């Protein structure tokens, strides 16, 4: 049976998880972190924060309608409700 197209490649969850991990490392989780690595992590964290915030403010929820054709294939159409 055919499946619907892939979902959009967003993973806010994964992004947040990585952020939390970075914060924990900087807060003392990573004992062997030298200043250079700490700075790199910090920069990655700042970049991810910015990206997450941008996504939240720019995104708009999509509303679609699920349809199945005669062969049972799923199709997503714009929903005009």
């Amino acid at each position: 049976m055919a499946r619907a197209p892939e979902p959009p490649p967003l993973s806010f969850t994964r992004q947040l998880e990585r952020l939390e991990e970075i914060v924990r490392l900087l807060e003392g989780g990573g004992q062997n972190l030298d200043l250079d690595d700490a700075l790199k992590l910090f920069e990655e964290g700042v970049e991810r924060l910015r990206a997450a915030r941008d996504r939240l403010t720019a995104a708009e929820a999509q509303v679609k309608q699920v349809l199945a054709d005669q062969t049972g294939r799923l199709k997503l159409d714009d929903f005009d409700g």
Partner: protein
Amino acid sequence: MGPSLDLFAALSPEGAWTVGQLTRRARAVVEAGFAPLWVRGEVSGFKAWQSGHWYFALRDRTAQIRCVMFQKDNRRLPAPPDDGMQVFVFGRPTVWEEKGEFRLTVVDLLSTAAGGLWQLAFEKAKAALAKDGLLDPARRRSLPAYPRRIAVVTSPDGAALRDIIAVTTRRWPLTELLVIPTRVQGEGAEGEICAALGLACRLEGLDVVIIGRGGGSREDLWTFNHERVARAVAALPVPVISAVGHETDVTLCDLVADVRAATPSAAAEAATPDRADVLVALDHLGARLARGLATRSGRVTESFNRMLDRLTGTLERRLERHRHELAGLAGRLDALSPLKVLERGYALARDEQGRVLKRVVQFPQGLSFRLRVTDGEVAARVDGRAEGGGPKS
């Protein structure tokens, strides 16, 4: 029962009626003699035919009457009655000519049990679901924090869908709302809902399903009390939020869902985080990130200071050693002092100007000079020829 039928003529064999004539006449008499009425009794010998019609007897201690309830009437009921059940039926007494049988054509049926037939059917389905473990609270899954895809199984033109769309788009824009339209009430609606739930099962990357409808009468909600619908909800591979029943009227669909919401709007709220809250959480993370780095670099400064301390310590110890060495040297210098030599019996001759006189030539006749010995000075004078003498110094 045409006008040709003559009761008096039938009093003799010559005027005998046919069976058909008699039963037709009996039917006419019975139907004319009774208006439709309520009858109460116990169900016995219940049988549902392929055609959908129900056949059973209603009886009490002294008598019984055959009953039929046609499919067009019984399909409004949630479930057939069980044998032995005390019921009220509303129907029309008649005679079934083919069998010469006195019977009741039932158009409505109520159970005398608490809640009636609806409640009984509900309890029966609920017991079946419980037996399969589908009502176990441990089955309930928690909802994903940041859903990417939410499927909504509901009527496409109801207020429920409008509310869900409005709340979801306002709260959580990082999501796709997939509407799977279905009828939610009326005959055959349960089949449509099951099909819609089947579609949801095939959606890739789905995080959560909302199944719902706006308020309705108890009969309107009945679709969601079908065991079939409840099992289809339980079979979904992702968490389900049910927004079907009322505060007072829980449906089976609500019972098998992972989360029950009071309204479709509440279901959408349960399914999504609030964008504003997440932005605040991001700010907190940002603050922790900055603090983390500051602490981290503070710690580096600290260890640098410790290293510096150790270094200065070493230097001081080294200086101390040097000081000792100096003292030793001073001792050795002292040993070499001329005064120490004098102690051993030597004398030092110096002229009046304090110049040391080391050679014979420095001692002319009559020179006054001074002799330094270990404990003082002695005045002296040259009064004879000096001996020896070498090249001028």
